[in-house]
């Protein structure tokens, strides 16, 4: 039976993404190697179209496919993030693929499929559907992580990612099964209604497993051990994607469960709190001693997962979870823009085969490539949370949400967050010091920056400054999205 048209509208972005992905896959063997640009262009078009197609679910909000999927402001918001990430990631990697002479078709198609999976996670209102989305995005990213086929690091990264990732998905699936056993449904909205016995051990166990699975996906401590190796080993544009899109989607799923299943809030609160605190310290302290920029950024993304978890803990602590969720969503936007930009710059500056990844290699960059240095500085300052950049407002809203709960546990978490920003300042500033204040030790020939990459970087930096100066619309929409989440 053909599904009703409205249901199709509600998953329009996913359809577009998958459609373009398939077309690219089909075309890839027939397009000659010299003209791979066509495929990249097609992929960018596809992702852009998907971004535009988010209009359709906006016009037809509501549950689709008998309630397993839901198109609402919330899923829309996350769709914007993941589709935007896809557009920028493909834009930024167009030239990189050529330089490393990788197959563009497969690469782009996998990104599109992964994005579709993330979209499903964002909209899923049923745990098995969410699982399908999770698998779609995970499996695509496993392959993407190993895209440097002849590099052992990349293979190691992919293997690690795959093994640990499978464990995590298994945990998630167990959790889904157990919650089903406890509540008799896998649909979140029904679960909310049937949560007659929130103290049920089965439900607790199930939610616990789900939390572990998702905590792995967002790289929160103590499930973060794979992160630095995978992020370092994977090709830099893939890292850019991995550290933003899947994370946003997993957070989105976490939040949706949190908002719908009442028992989750009480049960997860301390887990969220501990994971937030641990991730901040684990990420920041380890990042302090890194010599490779890529690895440092990997650790910093663990720390940022901790900051977002702090906002979610604030949401879990009270009945009025909106400001916590809105803060988390806003933070995701700012984080995605910045992290993506930073990794894309690293990909470009690394040179062929990503040779120049050490911080020392960035010495004198301000003279060699002032625009790149300025861009990277902007991103680093935003990660640090300096005013006028988006990162500052992200942190500000997290503080706001944490203090709004008026609970001492969260106020302390806010203080820990503050301390961590100071620790983090040291290593972010160190890169800026090297770029602006040191002379290069060896001569590194600057590669010309392709226009696709500059476009992506322009978008990312403009977004960073825009969100830092005029956050009203974004935070307003995030608050609206958080409101109709349930």
């Amino acid at each position, binding site marked *: 039976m053909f599904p009703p048209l409205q249901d199709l509208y509600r998953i329009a972005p996913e359809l577009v993404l998958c459609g373009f992905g398939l077309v690219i896959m089909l075309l890839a063997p027939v397009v000659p190697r010299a003209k791979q640009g066509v495929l990249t262009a097609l992929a960018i078009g596809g992702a852009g179209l998907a971004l535009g197609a988010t209009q359709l679910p906006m016009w037809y909000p509501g549950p689709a496919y008998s309630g397993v999927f839901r198109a609402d402001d919330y899923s829309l918001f996350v769709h914007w993030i993941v589709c935007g990430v896809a557009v920028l990631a493909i834009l930024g990697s167009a030239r990189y693929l050529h330089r490393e002479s990788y197959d563009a078709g497969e690469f782009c198609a996998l990104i599109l499929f992964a994005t579709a999976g993330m979209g499903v996670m964002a909209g899923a209102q049923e745990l098995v559907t969410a699982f399908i989305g999770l698998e779609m995005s995970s499996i695509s990213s496993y392959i993407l992580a190993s895209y440097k086929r002849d590099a052992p690091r990349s293979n190691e990264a992919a293997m690690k990612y795959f093994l640990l990732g499978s464990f995590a998905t298994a945990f998630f699936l167990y959790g889904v099964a157990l919650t089903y056993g406890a509540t008799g449904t896998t649909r979140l909205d029904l679960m909310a209604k049937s949560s007659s016995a929130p103290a049920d051990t089965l439900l607790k166990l199930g939610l616990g497993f789900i939390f572990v699975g998702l905590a792995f996906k967002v790289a929160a401590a103590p499930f973060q051990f794979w992160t630095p190796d995978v992020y370092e080993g994977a090709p830099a544009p893939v890292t850019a994607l991995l550290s933003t899109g899947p994370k946003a989607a997993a957070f989105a799923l976490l939040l949706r469960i949190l908002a719908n299943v009442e028992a989750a809030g009480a049960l997860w609160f301390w887990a969220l709190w501990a994971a937030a605190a641990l991730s901040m310290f684990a990420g920041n302290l380890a990042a302090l001693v890194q010599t490779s920029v890529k690895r440092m950024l990997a650790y910093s993304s663990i720390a940022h997962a901790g900051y977002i978890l702090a906002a979610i803990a604030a949401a879990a602590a009270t009945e009025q979870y909106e400001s916590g969720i809105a803060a988390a969503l806003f933070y995701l936007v700012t984080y995605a823009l910045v992290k993506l930009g930073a990794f894309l710059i690293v990909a470009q500056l690394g040179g062929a085969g990503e040779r120049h990844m050490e911080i020392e290699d960035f010495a004198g960059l301000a003279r060699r490539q002032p625009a790149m240095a300025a861009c990277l500085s902007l991103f680093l*300052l935003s990660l640090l949370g*300096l*005013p*006028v950049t988006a990162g*500052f407002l992200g942190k*500000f809203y997290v*503080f*706001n949400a944490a*203090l*709004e709960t*008026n609970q001492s546990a969260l*106020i302390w978490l*806010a*203080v820990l967050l*503050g*301390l961590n*920003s*100071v620790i983090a*300042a*040291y290593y972010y*500033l*160190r890169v800026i*010091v090297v770029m*602006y*204040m040191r002379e290069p030790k060896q001569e590194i020939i600057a590669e010309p920056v392709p226009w696709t990459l500059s476009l992506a970087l322009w978008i990312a930096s403009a977004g960073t400054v825009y969100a830092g100066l*005029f*956050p*009203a619309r974004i*935070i*307003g929409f995030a*608050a609206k999205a958080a409101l109709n989440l349930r």
Partner: protein
Amino acid sequence: MLGLLLLRSEDYAWIRRLALAVALAEFAISLLLPWSFNPNAAGFQFEELHVWIPQPPIHYHLGVDGISLFLVLLTTLLTPLSILASWDSIRERQKGFFISLLVLETGVIGVFVSLDLFLFFLFWEVMLIPMYFLIGIWGHERRIYAALKFILYTMFGSILMLIAIVWLYRMSAEARAPTFDIPQIQMLLANGNLALSRKTETWLFAAFFLAFAIKVPLFPLHTWLPDAHTEAPTAGSVILAGVLLKMGTYGMLRFCLPMFPEASRRFAPAIAVLAIIGIVYGALVAMVQTDLKRLVAYSSVSHLGFVVLGIFAFHAISIEGSIYQMLNHGITTGALFLAVGMLYDRRHTHLIHEFGGLATPLPALAALYLFSCLASAGLPMLNGFVGEFLILAGTFQRHAAWASWAALGMILSSVYLLWSYQKVFFGGVTEARNQALPDLNRRERGILFVLAAFMLWMGIGPSYFTHRMEASTQAVLQLMQRPQAYNAGRMNTRDIIGMNPGSVGTAAMPVAATGSGAPARGSLPVNSR
């Protein structure tokens, strides 16, 4: 009102001229402020209010009062002078240098004029980055270390202040008047609509105070200052010492006192002790420095101790003296740093033993340096005397012991300043190559003359300045002096909250509240001017 200019200059040869022109224009604009400033009004003037972010309500709210007025002028005065001072000495990456300097000016002015806590914090943090670059790129040998130390210290303090700001906002939201607006929050606190518990007030006070104390810097937190000052280029040191340090004392005056009066009162003795330690310790350490720039840096620790002491004596005269001393310190220490920088331009060293007998080759510099030294040491008829006298006079009326100890600092300051002056300028020329040093050129002379003129003017005609500070100082003290309203407000909210426990609790409450209020009122400085 104040155009917050962000300058982009592309033309290489014209950069410094353009920068100078912008800075001078800004100075000219800021001169309009005292011109049309109404000295009798206590509130803020020239206010500008636009909604920036509707939710949470953050406004672009600017305005000046008697406290910030002259600090703004000081900033706009010192910036063109430091641009002039860097005219020839900055040879590399001029564009970046002058842009940093102007952004810095924007940030500092923003701090002084913003009347929205969020905006205040924004400027407070934004100005770190240009300063960081100024020290880190154009500084001396250990510049990177100094720049990092500077920024990490400041950030540590400011992040706690950010939490406190958000907390304060949350409190105001709970009082059904969510706002970041500084006058509004002060009003809420003063009329008791927003009542802080003793514990909350202490924490908030501590968070704000720590940020400001690091900036000032108050005694145990001062260690970033000598490094940052010594390593910074001349213009950086001038702005750092002249204006940035004042942001700390300004913050204390603007936030700590009027918003958290009880906590301020409670901690005042401890703070005064730290300030006095700072005064004496700074002076003693300055005495043994071998590096001229470091000496001036430590003298800042000592002088800022005076300012803090004056503020926390809670006396109208001493607070006025503190504001006055902030200006003095900006001008005299600015002049000293400029003069030291001019020496550095000639000899590329700051070490005292490299100099000696410089009065022979450099008579003009020697004369102007002496003038600044005397002003800094507090010679009557020059500005330093007025400020320190007001502070000591005010403090003495409250706490004679504090003032006596602090006066020791005044003596010590003349010791180390004159001592170093003697070593550098008097006697025969000790090093042969110092013999041929060229004296000040017209540009350098002009810079120092302008500052010397201010020193003289502020020394003999202080009433022009104090007249404009008076009303605002009184307003700060008035905000502090409302224990009745303050306690009454708290009582009321407690009544409302305490409804359910029953009437016993509510009956006991007023007694306790008035009991704690009475001694506080008795010991309060009822200003008598």
